[in-house]
């Protein structure tokens, strides 16, 4: 498998506290990696390090073998797209299509206007996320779920090789959760896209991801296939819950029943 992004001993300190410690992870082409762990475990910080939105305090991150910190933001943006946890509600009523077109920004020169090709890519991204019908609607008037799908479309329009998503399904209803995750998994299979997604819902994570990274207090305590990561022992250790885990034949994922907190 082709590695895209490699973290070696990555650490991040924030106000004198270590929020991520000694992270050693490699993300490969065609791989859907889920990032799980309790609140405050460092999932968002890890995603921001991967997108070069934060610089690591220690260790190093490599994009295609080149040191991430040495690359220009624009170069990084041609390879890596980010869908943040929740976009703050905008006050500027841009039509959804314009927002999706913004994904083409890193591919265009400063003086170059959008080409027909950019429109085609943006329209395709909107078709993929089922947001075509929203194209001319102002982003300010969309519901939280619709806006989230437009933001995913914007990230897809970037045509990245690595897609980072922070809780992409948090604002979505059940049907759209499945649609968005299915779409992303199809892109992983067909386009060999690499995906890292922080996902709160462990059952969804086990169902869609090829691999799970379990974070606890800033450290990766497990990095393996979903069934190997989501064991009752690990759930007790990381989340502090007693749970049953069984294979779900229908979905191919795991069925997790939380009994209660660990005494």
């Amino acid at each position, binding site marked *: 498998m082709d590695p895209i992004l490699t973290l070696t001993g990555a650490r991040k300190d924030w106000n004198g506290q270590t929020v991520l410690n000694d992270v050693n992870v490699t993300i490969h082409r065609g791989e859907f990696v889920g990032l799980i762990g309790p609140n405050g475990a460092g999932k968002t910080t890890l995603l921001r390090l991967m*997108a070069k939105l934060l610089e690591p305090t220690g260790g190093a991150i490599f994009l295609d073998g080149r040191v991430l910190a040495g690359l220009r933001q624009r*170069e990084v*943006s041609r390879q890596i797209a980010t869908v*943040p946890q929740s976009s703050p509600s905008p006050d*500027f*009523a*841009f039509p959804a299509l*314009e927002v999706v*077109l913004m994904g083409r920004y890193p591919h265009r020169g400063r003086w170059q*206007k959008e080409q027909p090709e950019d429109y085609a890519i943006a329209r395709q991204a909107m078709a993929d996320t089922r947001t075509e019908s929203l194209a001319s609607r102002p982003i300010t008037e969309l519901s939280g779920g619709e806006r989230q799908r437009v933001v995913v479309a914007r990230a897809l329009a970037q045509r990245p090789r690595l897609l980072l998503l922070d809780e992409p399904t948090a604002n979505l209803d059940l049907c759209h959760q499945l649609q968005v995750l299915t779409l992303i998994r199809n892109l992983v299979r067909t386009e060999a896209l690499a995906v890292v997604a922080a996902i709160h819902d462990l059952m969804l994570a086990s169902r869609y991801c090829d691999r799970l990274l379990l974070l606890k207090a800033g450290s990766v305590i497990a990095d393996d296939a979903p069934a190997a990561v989501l064991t009752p022992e690990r759930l007790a250790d990381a989340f502090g819950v007693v749970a049953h885990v069984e294979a779900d034949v229908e979905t191919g994922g795991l069925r997790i029943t939380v009994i209660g907190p660990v005494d």
Partner: protein
Amino acid sequence: MIPAMGRISVLLLGLLAVLLVSVICATAVGSVFIPFPTVVAIFLDRLPGVSTEGWLPAQAAIILHLRFPRVLLAVLVGGALSLAGAVLQGLFRNPMADPGIIGVSSGGALGAVVAVTSGLALEYPWTLPLFAFMGAGGATLAIYRLSTHHGRTPLARLLLAGLAVGAFLTAMSSFLLSLAQNIFVLREMLFWLLGGLDGRGWRHVLLVSGPVILGSLALVLFARDLNLLAVLGEEGAKSLGVEMTQLKRWLLALTALITGVVVSVSGIIGFVGLIVPHAVRLLWGPDHRVLLPVSFLAGAVFVIWTDLFTRTVLPAEELRLGVVTAAIGAPFFLYLLQRYRLRTEEI
């Protein structure tokens, strides 16, 4: 956007035509009315190789030496303040930003007052716009530092920080002016704190036109970056490859430049940068590639007519331009504040 690019050319040409007509009207009207054909004839006569007749030398003097430079200044002041407002609103992701309201203009005025009261401006006229630029720049930086944390600028914080910075700088200006022992001190204070274009002429036009035109053209080049910033926020724009630190540095510096420089000849004229970009957004949408150039032209037209109003409505006592823009702008500001609060709780 491809059809829209054609649309924006048509829009800009249309506004240029409106601007031209406004310039001619405002030059024709005043204490002595000069018919439009005469005005046009006088202008045409100035073109190389063209000679017209049918006008009196006195009329030419009124137009070319009194009214025309004042109207040109109205174009520069209105254009610069509107553009600065539009840029600040995008930069702070905050639709209530305006160089007058958040104290940038007060910084410019203080710089200008320092240049005037120290006597430097008499000796070296260029120190006037330079000091005003520095004052506006310092104010902008202070307000930015005070109100923005982790790339977010809550509305209340911006307005309160701007209010405090503006009040402090205005107090400093008043203090310096009272120290100057000038018999015209009240008039001077009035001039800087409630701006206007009275008594301004060609030398003021020459002083500010270069920086305003160059600064404005440079700002328009950042339209696409501002689109990303306004919609996606700092981190979102950064994740798409915008070099945020550089972008902010340029936007703050250029906004301070054009605001400071016009304040150094007109004093503080508030609310133009609030009213005009809002009206433009309402009519033609939020895309900064349209908004920025259109705000400049629309702001120019707005200040031409407001200034014409101030010098014609009460012929005996000239009304201050800053008074009129505040009278229109303050209620508009309150209306926006009300509407803004209905949509978000973050105030």
